[in-house]
């Protein structure tokens, strides 16, 4: 399947403008600011939905760059990649193209928590993303820096205090207008870089800082609540200076499993894959960290001076530097993964060694680790501090509630990780396009996807530290598996959202029907336990009251595979043998998913009750306590479902809200049908009739 030829960079320039004056239009449906994981998915998704889209990035060359780790997927994150792919996003296919080491994490812990993961070749990844964007119709890429957002009065028939109408570019003060703008500025929003005691403005080493104007617009003009977060990256190490024989070899899976539902294989041949290596920190590392503390302003801020013993688990829990790890858990060995950066790259990426101490101390630190005794640093590690917008100010469509047409995705919403950024980017792009094309917003429920969990957590709870996906965040984990993301999302993505190609849709339909047929065939295979034992002599079929078993029940047995059943009943089951693994998983998980169904339905129905976004909760003429009014005003839940999940809401308050919503709906409808009729009256009339 992966026969696609990447176009040469010359042809690239056809659709890429380096100057705004060369732009074909000065007006677009959607403008996406930023070319990282969120920005590229947003731009591609918006164009897929049908919007004329402009992607503005500081440097065309860094579009699709992996700024930090050279890997994709993992536990929880792999689920996100599968879901993005199911919605026809880029990163799954890019991973299959650029992967040089594929493995499924948690292989022995059950298919619901399998974590598809790959080490990537940075260059291949970037090239794939760039070529995809190039071949996407309706998408234009512009190299440039955004000076500020154009903000004007809101449309009166929509909620919100402001409306975004486009952007002003830095050079030449040129304006480009659009119905929707998606900001995916990553760590560049008021970003500053830290190494040792030096601090310089910027979002990534080697790139210019983004304009202060954007930050200013968000804070001063739109009055958004902002916070500040930290992250960091490790030094890059010269591969040939490393003695890998002193580390533990970790080979990839012998048969690489592609991320994408469309791919049957990966570009990298199984035998061409590169290994990873695992090593550990030593007491020497701890010593260097302690000796360098006074020279490490990033860590100083992190730990508030020498009182690092008080450091709480919630500072930097998900992406900690080696400094904070050894300070929090002293006297232990910490894992360090030595990961390849690409097929031909001369660098290694030491995962787990993110650090901000001065470069010379970084060198002494890594040399305390046996395989790195003589290692050379190519680029030192550094820390980044950046602004994020408190995501509770967003709707589940990732639009800023107070500002019509402004969408945010990625680290600007307080998340960390490529996959989290890409997932939000895709969804923000979809909704930005839908808004521009006058289609209603779409939301994903936490009952149907990890993307839904991610967005719901962000907009309902907010973040206090960089948000990272874990499988334990998804309460319906057994139903939201990596294997069935296509059934959950591709169909909906085509039928309701409009971001999925017809090719993928047809394939998902075929899979869905085949699985349904196969499961029905299994269900119909009823044999006595005695006969099953004869068929499958090696399987211990338990004795139970009901003597008849169907194929589904037998497939649930640990030792039974679909292939075994297919060889017993070739004519009925062989047609579906390409889905062997999926069928086995379906059979085992079905009873558990059925159990969860009721709870999922309940949540989904609650989420279909919308609360108007412009309610003034303080003057709402219903019986609500001041405390509840404040909570509602602060979080402005978009559905009753979201309201019930807010901390501090009371059941009584929910009922009063419900009553209010009902009356408002009724009023709206009545106003349409008969403007002059009295409003409160029918309520009583109805009551007297029911008594």
């Amino acid at each position, binding site marked *: 399947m992966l026969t696609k030829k990447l176009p040469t960079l010359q042809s690239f320039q056809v659709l890429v403008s380096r100057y705004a004056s060369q732009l074909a239009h000065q007006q677009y449906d959607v403008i996406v600011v930023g070319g990282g994981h969120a920005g590229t998915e947003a731009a591609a998704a918006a164009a897929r939905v049908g919007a004329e889209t402009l992607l503005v990035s500081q440097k065309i060359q860094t579009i699709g760059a992996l700024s930090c780790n050279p890997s994709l997927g*993992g536990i929880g994150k792999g689920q996100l990649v599968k879901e993005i792919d199911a919605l026809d996003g880029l990163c799954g296919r890019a991973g299959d193209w650029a992967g040089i080491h594929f493995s499924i994490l948690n292989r022995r*812990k*059950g298919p619901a928590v399998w974590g598809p993961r790959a080490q990537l070749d940075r260059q291949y990844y970037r090239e794939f993303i760039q070529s995809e964007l190039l071949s996407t119709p309706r998408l234009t890429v512009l190299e440039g820096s955004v000076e500020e957002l154009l903000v004007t009065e809101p449309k009166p028939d929509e909620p919100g205090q402001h409306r975004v109408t486009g952007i002003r570019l830095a050079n030449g003060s040129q304006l480009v207008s659009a119905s929707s703008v998606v900001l995916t500025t990553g760590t560049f929003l008021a970003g500053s870089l830290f190494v040792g005691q030096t601090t310089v403005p910027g979002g990534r080493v080697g790139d210019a800082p983004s304009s202060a104007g954007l930050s200013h617009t968000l804070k001063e003009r739109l009055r958004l609540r902002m916070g500040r977060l930290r992250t960091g990256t490790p030094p890059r190490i010269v591969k040939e200076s490393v003695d890998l024989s002193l580390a533990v070899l970790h080979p990839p899976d012998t048969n690489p499993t592609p991320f994408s539902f469309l791919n049957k294989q990966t570009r990298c041949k199984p035998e061409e894959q590169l290994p990873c290596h695992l090593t550990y920190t030593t007491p020497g590392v701890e010593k260097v960290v302690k000796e360098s503390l006074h020279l490490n302003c990033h860590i100083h801020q992190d730990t508030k001076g020498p009182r690092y013993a008080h450091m709480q688990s919630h500072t930097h829990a998900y992406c900690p530097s080696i400094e904070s*790890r050894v300070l929090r858990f002293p006297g232990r060995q910490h894992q360090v993964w030595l990961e390849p950066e690409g097929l031909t790259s001369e660098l290694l990426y030491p995962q787990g060694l993110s650090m901000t101490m001065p470069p010379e101390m970084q060198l002494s630190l890594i040399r305390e680790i046996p395989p790195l005794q003589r290692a050379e640093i190519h680029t030192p590690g550094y820390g980044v501090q950046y602004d994020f917008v408190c995501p509770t100010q967003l709707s589940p469509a990732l639009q800023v509630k107070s500002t019509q047409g402004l969408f945010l995705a990625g680290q600007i919403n307080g998340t960390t990780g490529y996959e989290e950024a890409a997932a939000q980017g895709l969804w923000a792009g979809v909704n930005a396009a839908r808004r521009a094309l006058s289609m209603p917003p779409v939301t994903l429920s936490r009952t149907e996807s990890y993307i839904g969990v991610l967005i719901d957590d962000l907009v309902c709870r907010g973040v206090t530290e960089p948000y990272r996906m874990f499988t334990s965040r998804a309460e319906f984990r057994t139903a939201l598996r990596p294997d069935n993301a296509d059934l959950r999302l591709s169909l909906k993505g085509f039928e309701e959202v409009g971001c999925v190609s017809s090719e993928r849709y047809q394939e998902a339909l075929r899979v869905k029907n085949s699985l349904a047929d196969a499961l029905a065939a299994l269900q119909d295979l009823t044999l006595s336990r005695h006969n099953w034992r004869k068929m499958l002599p090696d399987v211990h079929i338990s004795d139970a009251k009901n003597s008849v078993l169907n194929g589904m029940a037998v497939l649930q047995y640990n030792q039974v595979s679909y292939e075994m059943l297919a060889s017993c009943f070739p004519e009925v089951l062989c047609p579906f043998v390409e889905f062997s693994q999926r069928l086995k998983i379906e059979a085992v998980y079905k009873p558990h998913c059925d159990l969860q169904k009721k709870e999922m339905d309940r949540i989904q129905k609650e989420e279909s*009750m919308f609360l108007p976004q412009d309610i003034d909760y303080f003057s709402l003429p219903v019986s609500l306590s001041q405390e509840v009014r404040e909570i509602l005003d602060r979080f402005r839940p978009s559905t009753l479902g979201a309201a019930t*999940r807010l901390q501090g809401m009371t*059941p009584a308050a929910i009922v009063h809200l419900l009553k209010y919503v009902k009356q408002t709906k009724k009023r709206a409808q009545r106003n349409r049908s008969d403007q002059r009729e009295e409003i409160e009256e029918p309520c009583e009339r109805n009551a007297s009739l029911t008594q």
Partner: protein
Amino acid sequence: MILSFISRCIRTPALYTLSKRIVTPPCRSVSHDLPVGLADAGTIFALSSGQGRCGVAVIRASGPASSTALRCLAGLTHSLIPPRTASLRNITDPNSREILDRGLVFWFPGPHSFTGEDSVEFHIHGGAAVIAAVLQALGSVPGMRPAEAGEFTRRAFQAGKMGLTEVEGLGDLIHAETEAQRRQALRQMSGELGRLYQNWSHQLKRYLAHVEAFIDFSEDELIEDGVLHRVDESVHQLQAEVEKHLKDERRGERLRSGVQVVIAGATNAGKSSLLNTLCQRPAAIVSPIAGTTRDVVETALDIGGFPVLLSDTAGLRDSPDLVEREGVRRARERLEQADLTLVVVDCAQLPSDAPEAAEFLQHHLKSVLSLQEQPETVFPVDRVLLVLNKTDLLPQVQRQNLDRELERVSGLPPVCLISCHTDDGLQDFLTVLHSSVRNLCADPLVGAPSLTQARHRAHLQQCCAALAQYQRYRDVDLALAAEGVRLALTSLGRITGRVGAEEILDIIFKDFCIGK
């Protein structure tokens, strides 16, 4: 048109689920100690008639399994009874086939019922034992669970059986309900039992966090070896503990099979007279000859609505008579099984000096209850009543002194002075006896503690089953095993308060060294 709109909006599924959600207080501030009753669909049942003893009690069930319940309990094998018509049936326990009562049953197929769902009513006799037995029998029907407070009303509302105006009151009603639930939960949660459940919940939270840490982080991070093994052991232990707890709680059983009340004491104290007085017939032979009662004489009684199995035993003394010795052995054996012991003492045998009498009683109790070996005696005060019989033989002055002394002395179980001969003090004694028996049965008619208990029991059973799921999937599929612990925690959470994903993550980050 407006009316049809209103009725339509009342019937929307969203409204339906929203109202259900109400029972699950989502808010931390209120729900922290709330027994979060997840009112799923399913079929609910409850005692619908008033609290307190009454001639007829009405038990109502609503939901899809109502017809099954009706078939099971009213022994209807073929067709159901005609709708909305009274039928006199034997009410039987579907498992033991034991006849629990004979009463009227009604069948209201939906939507023409109070709740709009299929509903059944059982009109049965109002005794606590009968009510408890029928409630238990209903609970054993698959798909049935005890109703949350106010749930019938809510279902009626959801089914569009109530108008919008009535909804106005619902918010306040639910508020009051949750307030009441909260108070009740607080009351229960501050007790021994509450601490036990909290402790379990706390443990489970930790186990879940450790399993989740193993799932989400073990491949990338240093999760110490053996984390999972420790969880295995702990889950096993916890499951055993909960199972034991479920078995230990004998109150429900007592209600069904009767409280074992044993009359014991020295010969000729008037034990058999007491039995005859209580059952109001000469069930046991009474004579002035010491050692008249040789065997255990049993009689079933209804004391204030509670079933009591009263046993009269042979007087405790060393006797050369073989038959009497066997009688004393049986008496001792019966005493060991007693839920409540009535120690009968002949007043006339008491020393005339009041302090000496108190000391005598202490000593006597020890000997009857076989507690002589224990130096510091604390009587199980809720398990023993001291009955001083034959007050008619006591001189007035001595009685007054004795009364005063008994009030002063501490460490004795409740004391009743009666005369089986003149019925003196009998009313007071019955009151004391009734309250002891009620305590032993956990009166199902006061507030709704027995309903709450039934719910606790259901949740604890679910918790056990879920822990079994952990064991079953532990080596096959850790995600499904973790789901077991999660379900167990949810079940317990319905008693002790909800536990969210964030709390689990907090534990993970506190307990493990985890990075990116």
